[in-house]
C-alpha cells in the first residue's frame, strides 16, 4: 500500500503536480477581474453610488494583477524559460496565451486607465512634492504636464473608452483562466464548457467582495464615515452576481448528477470523503449559503446600519474564503482521483519549500503590501471631491 492512496492510482499520478500555488493563480486573477468589473460599474454603467470605491477598486485590481504571475513563476520547473511563452508560443495551447492576455490587461487596460484617472493629480504632485517623491511623480507623468480642461476632457474620453475595452478584457482574463481547466478533456472534474463562465462569475463575486471589505476596513482605519449608499449598492450587486454564480455551479452539479457518466461514482465519492470539508462545508455552506442568506436578508428587510455593516463584512469575509475553497476544490480536487476512476491520492502540502504553504501565504499577503504602497502613492480617497464630476 502506498501511504495516502486508496484504491488504484496510475503510478505517476500519486504525486500531485499542481500545488497550492496553482490554487492562488485563479484566485488572484479572479480578484483582479472582479475588482475591475466593480470599477466599471461606476465608469461605464453610471452607477454613481459606488463612486467612492472606483479608485480603490482599480488599485486593488492592480495590486493583485502585479502578483498574479508570481505563483506561476514559482511553480515552473524552469522559471528562467518562461519568457519562451512570449517568443515561441504554441498556438494550440490554452496556456500559451496567458502571457499575452496578462500583458494586454496590465498595460492596455489597467495601467492606462489608472494613469488617465490620476494624471491631473500626478502632475500637481510632481510640482508640489519635494525630494525623492517629486522624482517618482515626475516619472509617473511620463512627460505630459498638460492638465488644461481640454486635456482633462480628452483624458476622460480616452479613460471611458479604455474601461469599455476593459470590461470584455476582464471577462477574457478570467474566462480564459477557466478555459485552461475546462478544456482538459482527460479530467472529468475540470472538463466542462461551464468552467469559464463559472470562473468568471465567481471572479466577479470575489473581486466585488474584496473591494467591499477593503473599503469598509480602510474607512474604519482612516476613521472616515462609510458611505452606506455605496456599501448597500455594492452589496446589492454582489448579491445579484452571487445568485448567478451559485445557479451556474448548481447547474453543473445537477448536470453531473443527472448524467452520471463513468466518472460520476468516483467524483461523488471524492466529494463525500476527501473534499467534504473544503467543498461541502467551506465552499457551499459557509462560503455560499451563509453569505447568500446574509445578503438576501438585506434585500428583503430593513436592517439597522450597524448590523448591516457587520452582515456585509461577515458575508464578504466568508465569500473570500469560500471562493478560495472553490479554487482549491477545482485545482487540488481535480488531481485527487485517478484517471482510472479506481482510486484516490492525498495532497501533502509542504511548508517552507518552493511550492509550500509559506510562499503561498506570502504571495497572498504581497498584494496587500503593494496595495498599501499604491494607496500611499496614489491616494484613492475622494472626500470633498466626491461629487465634483
Amino acid at each position, binding site marked *: 500500500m502506498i501511504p495516502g492512496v486508496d484504491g488504484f492510482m496510475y503510478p505517476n499520478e500519486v504525486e500531485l503536480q499542481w500545488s497550492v500555488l496553482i490554487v492562488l493563480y485563479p484566485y488572484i486573477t479572479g480578484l483582479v477581474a472582479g475588482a475591475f468589473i466593480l470599477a466599471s460599474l461606476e465608469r461605464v454603467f453610471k452607477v454613481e453610488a459606488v463612486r467612492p470605491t472606483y479608485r480603490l477598486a482599480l488599485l486593488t485590481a492592480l495590486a493583485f494583477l502585479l502578483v498574479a504571475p508570481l505563483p506561476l513563476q514559482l511553480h515552473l520547473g524552469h522559471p528562467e524559460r518562461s519568457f519562451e511563452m512570449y517568443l515561441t508560443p504554441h498556438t494550440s495551447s490554452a496556456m500559451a496565451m496567458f502571457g499575452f492576455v496578462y500583458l494586454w490587461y496590465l498595460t492596455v487596460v489597467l495601467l492606462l486607465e489608472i494613469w488617465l484617472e490620476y494624471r491631473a493629480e500626478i502632475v500637481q504632485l510632481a510640482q508640489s512634492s519635494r525630494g525623492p517623491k517629486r522624482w517618482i511623480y515626475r516619472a509617473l507623468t511620463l512627460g505630459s504636464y498638460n492638465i488644461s480642461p481640454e486635456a482633462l476632457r480628452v483624458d476622460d474620453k480616452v479613460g471611458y473608452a479604455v474601461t469599455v475595452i476593459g470590461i470584455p478584457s476582464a471577462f477574457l482574463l478570467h474566462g480564459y483562466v477557466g478555459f485552461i481547466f475546462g478544456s*482538459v478533456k482527460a479530467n472529468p472534474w475540470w472538463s466542462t464548457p461551464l468552467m469559464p463562465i463559472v470562473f468568471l462569475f465567481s471572479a466577479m463575486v470575489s473581486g466585488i467582495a474584496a473591494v467591499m471589505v477593503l473599503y469598509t476596513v480602510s474607512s474604519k482605519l482612516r476613521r472616515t464615515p462609510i458611505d452606506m449608499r455605496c456599501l448597500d449598492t455594492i452589496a446589492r450587486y454582489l448579491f445579484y452576481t452571487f445568485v448567478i454564480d451559485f445557479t451556474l455551479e448548481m447547474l453543473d452539479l445537477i448536470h453531473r448528477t443527472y448524467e452520471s457518466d463513468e466518472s460520476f461514482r468516483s467524483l461523488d465519492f471524492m466529494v463525500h470523503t476527501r473534499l467534504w470539508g473544503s467543498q461541502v462545508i467551506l465552499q457551499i455552506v459557509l462560503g455560499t449559503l451563509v453569505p447568500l442568506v446574509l445578503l438576501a436578508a438585506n434585500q428583503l428587510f430593513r436592517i439597522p446600519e450597524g448590523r448591516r455593516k457587520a452582515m456585509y463584512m461577515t458575508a464578504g469575509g466568508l465569500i473570500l474564503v469560500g471562493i478560495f475553497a472553490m479554487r482549491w476544490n477545482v485545482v487540488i480536487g481535480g488531481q485527487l482521483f485517478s484517471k482510472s476512476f479506481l482510486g484516490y491520492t492525498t495532497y501533502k502540502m509542504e511548508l517552507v519549500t518552493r511550492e509550500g504553504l509559506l510562499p503561498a501565504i506570502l504571495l497572498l499577503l504581497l498584494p496587500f503590501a503593494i496595495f498599501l504602497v499604491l494607496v500611499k502613492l496614489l491616494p484613492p480617497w475622494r472626500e470633498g471631491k466626491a461629487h465634483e464630476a
Partner: protein
Amino acid sequence: MDITRRDMFQIGGKLLVLASVGATLEQITGAAPPSEAYRMADHWWGMIIDIDKCIGCGNCVRACSKENNVPEGYFRTWVERYEIEAEDQQPHVESPGGAIDGFPPSTHTKLKSFYVPKLCNHCADSPCVQVCPVGATFVSPDGVVLVDQTYCLGCRYCVQACPYGCRYLHPETNTVDKCTLCYHRITQGLTTACCENCPTGARQLVDFKNPKDPVHEILRTHKVEVLKPYMATRAKVYYENLDGAVR
C-alpha cells in the same frame, strides 16, 4: 497512416522552432544521432500488446528503468494486474512499484485475472502536445511523442492533459519526462528495451509505414483496441484481447 501535406507543414514548423533554439534531436532525446540509413519519413512507430501473453514478470519495467535511467518512483512503463471477482463489481487493480519486481501472489478469489502493460500511447492527436505552451513536447515525423528537455518549462500542463498517466516531472532535470519509445534504439534499427526483454513476446514494436511489418496482418485478422478510445487521441499502442474493464 500517411502524413498529409498539412502534417508536414506542422512538423516542419516544429523542427524550425527546435532548430531556432539550437536544439538537436540528440540533445532532446539524449541519444546518439540516428544511423545514416534512417529516414524519419519512412517510419510511423507504435506498439502492439497482447494481453493474453503478458505474465506480469516486470522484465519490461526493469529493462526500461535501466535503459533510460528512469528515476525511482516514476515510470515510463508499468504493468497493472486486473482481478475481477464478479461482473457487477469494480475490478481490483494493482501495480506495486509499477511491477518493477513483478507481482506478489494474489489473495483474491477471482473470476478472471490478467496483466496490462502500459506506456505512452504515442498518440497522433496527442492532448499533451496540444497543451504544451511552448511546443517543447511534439510528435516527431516518425510518430514518436518526445519532450525537448532543453525547452520544457516544467509547467506540467501536459501531465494534466494525458488521459493515461504516462508523464511525470523528472526530479533532477525539473522537466517533464516520459517514454520515448527508446528513440535512441529504434533509430539505430533496434527494438525498444521493453520489447527486447519481454520473455513472451507480449509487446511488439511496430512500424505502420513498413509494408512488411506483421502489424498489418494482426490489424487485419485480430480484434484490437486502444485504451480510452473515446478520448479520440489516435493512440498508436494497440491491445489484443483487451477487457472492457481496463481503463
